[in-house]
């Protein structure tokens, strides 16, 4: 991208400079003080030299931005671009870029002729969404800094910011799934082996609260007069179908209430509803991320109901989660009933656990599946599961730890 549409900006110092130069020239001319006339013209000429050199310094720069993968809110993102000097002379200039409250600046002092440098801005985006990346602005005021020639090298790039990552305990999640009886619905046959996959038995260990009673090794427990459970070496992949319910009740408006105290309450309800939606979305990415980082990444399917249904499926990996779950950046909560074709929630092959992630319990999606006899598990903000630590709690723990430290 090469620059175009340069804007010339006079600093306050330049305005004063011009006024002083004109005053000196006029007084010198009127009083026939030739030295003052020459000095006034000299000052104006310096201004012209500044303008010309600044224009020249900004005219031959080109910028190429590297694509930015989706990032999680609160994550440090590296935004990289290459700046090239296409001129036959070195260029001294300031390059800036800004987006969503982040600003970064580089000064090339100088950038040699035909040279190219890479610049990287490391930003954090605190809020989920699609954040347009600001233009890369070349601001040249070489050599005196009186007149600025500003060129915007233009950018229609944006970065998709996914919900903030929380923390998921996959073990507890599996056990939770078992308790929720997730899996195929009516066709599920009782099985001694649970729907959750297990690996080879590595050994035995003492029972810990939360362990599945099925894993208790009775013989050893009887022998030792203490509960012992089997410990597995490897878990088989747990295929997951994550169904997002982006429920957000219609927010209260000021016109809906009659007194200020009631408005305060309603506003709080609005905020709480938004918080729950974000909680749910955060849960989705956290679960996907945790699955991707597990020892046996499962097959993940993400179902995003909406005006356009989005179904993304693939082997869980960090890169896959970023790319596949990018749609979460654009999720807009709605109170409308969303269309959800049942084919979307049936796995292509094998078993898969269906999990509804919602701000509320017993929403329309759950009712739909229940009506069709499709088994599912539901995690909602109204009844948060213990295997998920939301990001705000993680931050509090981090702050506490820092304070203690």
């Amino acid at each position, binding site marked *: 991208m090469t620059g175009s549409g340069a804007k010339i900006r006079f600093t306050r110092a330049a305005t004063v400079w011009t006024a002083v130069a004109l005053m000196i020239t006029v007084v010198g001319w009127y009083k026939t003080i*030739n030295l003052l006339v020459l000095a006034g013209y000299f000052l104006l000429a310096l201004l*012209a030299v500044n303008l010309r050199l600044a224009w020249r310094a900004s005219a031959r720069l080109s910028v*190429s931005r590297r*694509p930015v993968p989706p990032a999680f809110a609160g994550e440090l993102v590296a935004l990289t671009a290459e700046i090239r000097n296409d001129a036959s002379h070195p260029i001294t200039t300031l390059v800036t870029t*800004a987006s969503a409250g982040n600003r970064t600046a580089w*000064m090339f002092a100088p950038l040699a002729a035909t040279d190219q440098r890479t610049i990287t801005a490391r930003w954090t985006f605190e809020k989920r969404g699609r954040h347009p990346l600001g233009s890369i602005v070349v601001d040249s005021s070489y*050599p005196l800094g009186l007149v600025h020639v500003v060129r915007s090298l233009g950018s229609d790039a944006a970065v998709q910011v996914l919900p903030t990552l929380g923390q998921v305990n996959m073990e507890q999640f599996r056990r939770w799934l078992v308790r929720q009886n997730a899996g195929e619905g009516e066709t599920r046959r009782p099985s001694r082996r649970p729907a959750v996959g297990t690996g080879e038995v590595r050994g035995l260990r003492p029972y810990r609260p939360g362990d599945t009673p099925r894993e208790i090794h009775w013989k050893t427990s009887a022998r030792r007069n203490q509960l012992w459970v089997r410990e597995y070496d490897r878990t088989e992949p747990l295929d997951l179908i994550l169904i997002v319910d982006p429920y957000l009740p219609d927010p209260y408006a000021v016109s809906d209430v009659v007194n200020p105290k009631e408005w305060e309450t309603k506003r709080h309800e609005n905020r709480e509803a938004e918080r729950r939606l974000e909680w749910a979305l955060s849960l989705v990415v956290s679960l996907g991320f945790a699955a991707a980082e597990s020892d046996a990444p499962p097959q993940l399917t993400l179902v995003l109901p909406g005006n356009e249904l989005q179904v993304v499926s693939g082997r869980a990996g960090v890169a896959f989660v970023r790319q596949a779950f990018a749609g979460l950046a654009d999720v807009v909560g709605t109170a409308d009933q969303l269309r959800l074709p049942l084919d979307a929630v049936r796995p292509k092959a094998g078993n898969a656990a269906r999990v509804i992630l919602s701000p509320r319990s017993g929403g329309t999606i759950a009712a739909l599946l229940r009506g069709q006899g499709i088994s599912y598990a539901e995690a909602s903000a109204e009844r948060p599961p213990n295997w998920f630590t939301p990001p705000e709690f993680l931050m509090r723990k981090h702050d506490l730890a820092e304070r203690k430290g």
Partner: protein
Amino acid sequence: MPTHFAFRLSTYLTLGLACACLSYAEWDLLRQASFFGGLVIVFLVIAFLCDGRYELDLTSANRLGFGIGLAGTAWLAYQFLNKNSLIYTFPWPASLLPYLGPLLMVLMPAKLFRPKHIGDWWAMQGIGLATASLAAAMEDDAIFGVLLALYAVCGVWSLSLFFYLRVAGLLPPVPLSDPGPPVTILASTIRVEETQFGREFLGRALGWVALAIAIAAPFFVLTPRSAAPKWTFGQQRLETGLTQENFSDLNRTGELKPSREAAFELTINRRDGTPVTDFNLEQRFRSSTFNSYEGGRWVRVDTQPILMNTARLIRDDRSGGALPNFGPNQIDITFVPKIRLTEPILADPVNWETGKASPIVTLSELELRPWLHGKDGLFRPFGIPMTKGGVLPYRQSFVSPAETDLGPPWEPMSAYQPLGSAGDPDSLWYVFRNHRLTKLRAWSRELAVRLGKSNPAVQTALDRAIESPTFQLIPQDFEVVARAVTAYFAQSPEYEYTLKLRRLDAAADPIEEFLYRSKQGHCERFAAGTALVLRSLGIPAAYVLGYRGCEPDADTAGLYLVRQELAHAWVEIAIPRPAPAGFEFRRRPNDRLDGKPVVWHWLSLDPTPAEGTEDSTDGAGDVLKNPWAQFVNFFSDFIIGYDPEKRRGAFEAVSRWFLGPFGQGLIWLSVAGLVALVLARRHRRRRLAAMAPSGIVWFDRYRSILQKYGRPPQAGETLAEQATRLSVELGSDAPKRIVALYYEARFAGRTIATAELDAVEAALTELTILIRQTGPE
């Protein structure tokens, strides 16, 4: 990136030079200000050396500022109370200018010892500029010009370093302003030459100053000039040259500065119209003759007629005032005044003959107006007011006599007592022999006695002199004694020529003080002193102002210039000589010399020492040899003294040059050069378009690597074919991978993922290594 040390050095140097400019400018006006400027410079040095180690807190700074303000107010109040101060000497409000200087300079120390943010540095630059501008309004000699130029260079140097540090965020921002994001500084190379002193930035500053001057100079030259008189600030600045004043004030002190301003332009032709190219460059031109001296001033008082017959104004000449014919050696001098004078200049001695036409005519639009010859001996324009006499051109018929110092003969009004009776205040000669310096008469007598001891002719004159009622030489001895006295002043080692006019005793008469005490002065003092000494000895003497010398114009034959720096003063005395053959008397005189009737002449005598006249002006030869003199002349003529006339002359000179062969050649060369430049740019653009960047940076790097290592595409080869060929030659599929990815990005519109870009980087590195190993094709 410049160092902070270099920035501080440049800024303090700039401020120091601004103070130096103002101190230099105020030296003659307000010496206190100059000393104060020196003190500020000392503070600047201390502050620079302290390097921020010692800084005042806000309370201390406020107290110091209050104290400085109080002291400044008290000092200014004292100036208002002191009736001898410049406030009452110079016209208001210009009289405040010298006092602004210290008030400006005092602002610098107030800022030096405080922590400074960007706004403070800008403020200091502004104070420096105001200081230098104020100085430029009060001073204008070449040395000041050099100081100002140094200030300009240092100022630009400082501003450029200020720019770097400011943009890089290395200086504290203005409080409560948005400091902007932190700046990462990148450079293509790490330059070891970026020394502590920032020399390379100084070199660039010189270039920018030169560029700015090149831009400003044409505007300066082209700007129409104001018709207002040249600003002169301060009585104590004196320049050589005549003025519009109708008196000569010898009470002035100060240093006379040669002024290169043109006073007159002369066009000299022979009767047949051919230009004179061998005119005497030491020719005298007289302007004003003064006959009365009192209290240090020469004035001209009305006199009784002294001439019996005059040159006539031909009133009935319908052809409009033809000039007289003085013979085959006659030349016509056309005077074009460049300045306004009370009396115009004429080539001396002014030739005239009784009863013949006036030798001078005014060249008005309608006719030639002959000048009137008064019976007091002066020529005046007729019919045109005197105030305009110096404006319209006029022409003089001139022939250089055998005795160049001797004026033409004339018959006095009183044939029997041409000098009048002694002591008669109504006598004509009373005016030319009178003065009130009693002590001078005795001193002059003693001087004549001393001269008589080594000059028998003087002694004889003294022996023949009349003692009663006052000492008086006889007319026949006027010339010999006058020449002896003139030679004494011109050659005596006791008397020294100088342009620095000083008075050791302000209460004494300036000429007496010159003759008895200081014995130093310029041509006016030598001439005035000689005239008064001669008057004391009874010799009728007048004090004459005019010019001595002229410069030929290099381009135009017959054109000469008389500059103000050639202004001169001398003495003329009235002496009797035997009448030349054929002289027509109106009344036969009583006196005789050598058996012939007596006529009178004005004899010009120059008592100014010879080496003084050479020092007072820079002749053409000096200018060519001395670069400093060249610079001074250029500065005086084309910067300080650039007036409407010079502007017109510059335009004419430039026009003449461009119409000449060199100018025409330069114009055609410039046109050819412009055409060549346009064609070259077009060719370059076409060549660059063929190699236009693809818009994909990593692919352009791939192409530049191939170009650099001599692997261009073969004729008709596509990118993919080239990549395939290179892959075979290098034994690596890196080129194919890169080109494949380029096709996808460029033509399929696919966004390349970060991981793929990393792979491209690796492929480019691999390609570079392999190519280097295998070498060019």
